[in-house]
């Protein structure tokens, strides 16, 4: 029994250690003064602040960071707003077209972006949105996942609560804003987090729709980083580290919402 517990602890520490090893390597190489030691095992001084200063001063990292933040916060807020409205309505209101809309949402959950990027690109081109922020943002603005998540959550709002408000003479929009939205808050935070993290990592769409460096978000900037700093591994790694910081902060601040978002659909329904 006791030996089993110790063995289990040792296994877990080794396993988690291996899972953290690449993260540790990132820290080591990102803090290196040059590319002489790329093993990522031992710190060779701690030049991380200088490296970051260099990237913020001489490379386009601040532009990429700004673009990524605009993209992720902007579309995240829009997704939360539209998904909250539609998800609530689909769960609690009776209106024409509800079934069709639900089928549409479920159907889009199954589609792969690889099928859609070509026609969506042609639509965006038709709209004259190639190389614009709206071109990068609008097609990914609302997610079927978001609408579905809010709907599932909103099914749990007690009918009597809404009915009582109606009897008291509250209008439907007022009920949505004053009663539903506060109750939906955990789902909305989860949705924002999931959306932010997914968008933060979105390389494919900006790569297709934005060729101008001024518009690039971090993933695209990072993919082309060698054109800025040359084959400079330690500075590329510093940039990668900077990229990982905002998701990390969000995850720490909103950990339980993150787990809720990940496991949504994985547990019993």
């Amino acid at each position: 029994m006791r030996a089993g517990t110790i063995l289990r602890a040792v296994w877990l520490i080794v396993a988690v250690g291996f899972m953290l090893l690449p993260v540790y390597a990132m820290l080591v190489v990102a803090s290196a003064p040059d590319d002489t030691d790329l093993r990522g095992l031992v710190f060779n001084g701690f030049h991380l602040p200088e490296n970051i200063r260099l990237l913020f001063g001489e490379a386009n990292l601040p532009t990429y960071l700004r673009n990524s933040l605009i993209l992720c916060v902007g579309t995240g807020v829009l997704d939360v707003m539209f998904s909250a409205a539609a998800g609530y309505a689909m769960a609690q209101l009776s209106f024409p077209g509800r079934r069709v809309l639900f089928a549409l949402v479920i159907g889009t959950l199954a589609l792969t972006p690889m099928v859609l990027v070509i026609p969506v690109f042609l639509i965006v081109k038709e709209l004259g949105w190639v190389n614009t922020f709206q071109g990068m943002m609008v097609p990914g603005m609302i997610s079927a996942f978001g609408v579905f998540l809010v709907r599932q959550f909103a099914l749990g709002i007690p009918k009597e609560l809404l009915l009582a408000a109606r009897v008291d003479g509250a209008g439907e929009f007022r009920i949505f804003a004053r009663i539903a939205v506060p109750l939906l808050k955990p789902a909305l935070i989860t949705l924002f987090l999931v959306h932010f993290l997914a968008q933060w990592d979105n390389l494919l769409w900006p790569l297709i729709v934005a060729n101008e460096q001024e518009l690039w978000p971090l993933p695209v900037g990072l993919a082309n980083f060698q054109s800025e700093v040359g084959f400079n591994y330690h500075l590329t790694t510093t940039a990668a580290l900077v990229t990982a910081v905002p998701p990390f902060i969000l995850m720490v601040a909103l950990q339980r919402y993150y787990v809720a978002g990940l496991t949504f659909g994985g547990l019993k329904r």
Partner: protein
Amino acid sequence: MSVLDGVRARPQATAGMLGRGRTRPQATAGVALTLPVAVFFVVFWLVPFLAAIYLSFTDYEMAGTPNWIGLANYERMFADPGFLNSAWITVVYTVCTVVPTIVLALLVAVPLSKPGRLNRRLRALVMIPAVMPLAATSMVWVIIYSDRGMANTLLGLVGIEPQSWLTSSDLAIWALVVMVVWKSMGLFVIILTAGLQALPGEVYEAAAIDGSGAVTTFTRITLPLLRRTLLFVLVISVAGSMQAFVPAFLLTGGGPADATQVLPYYIWANAFPYEHMGYAAAMGMVLLAAMVIVSALQFGFLKGGDE
């Protein structure tokens, strides 16, 4: 406990006291609240999907107009070594990332889901690799796989010769697989741990009283009870692997010599740099069909055991 649990457990709400009939204010509000989403899904999902089906039967090349060519794109695919190679690599890549990831994640999640201070701390640490952006992850692994990087250093300790992981056509795909397994593992450990923690404790107490060993408990109790979570993990990891574009794009650029040219990469390359939009759309359709079939099979396979 998940934040969403309490709410999800409720039975689906029915039309309630108002019956099936709708009231005018509700109908108006319902339409108003869903209209933006409905328009959005039609413009950016439904229309593109139908357009993709249409394009897949044309020779559209970005410049010029699409001409209907019937099934020619689909016929061309099965004679195109590039497509066949990509399809095969996608199969290998999917199987070899999904199976080890789930097995390893289970091996970590089962002991990790037990209570205790050490486990609580380790669970928090596991989240770090899980939230690393894939782009940043790929940059780090490029360095791990470099000639003087961590992979060669650590393998050198057990007497393995240094390898050119990303530029050898035999090794590159495996280098990609290892990175993806590492990247997805954190995520799946979290999901599986949450699933394990939600299992009823009494069953385990009963099993312990009956003198059930660790292995028996795992195969007879944990695995069957965890089936839904496992199905979920399986479905998202297979779907994720089948559409994975970023690792191949960032780590190897599909190379060397097409060795890591997974299907999503081949579709992208055909559609954008080469502008063979019609052909790429047809390949997208085949990928979508494959994904739908594989998902249906997984649901059938794992649902089959229910009740």
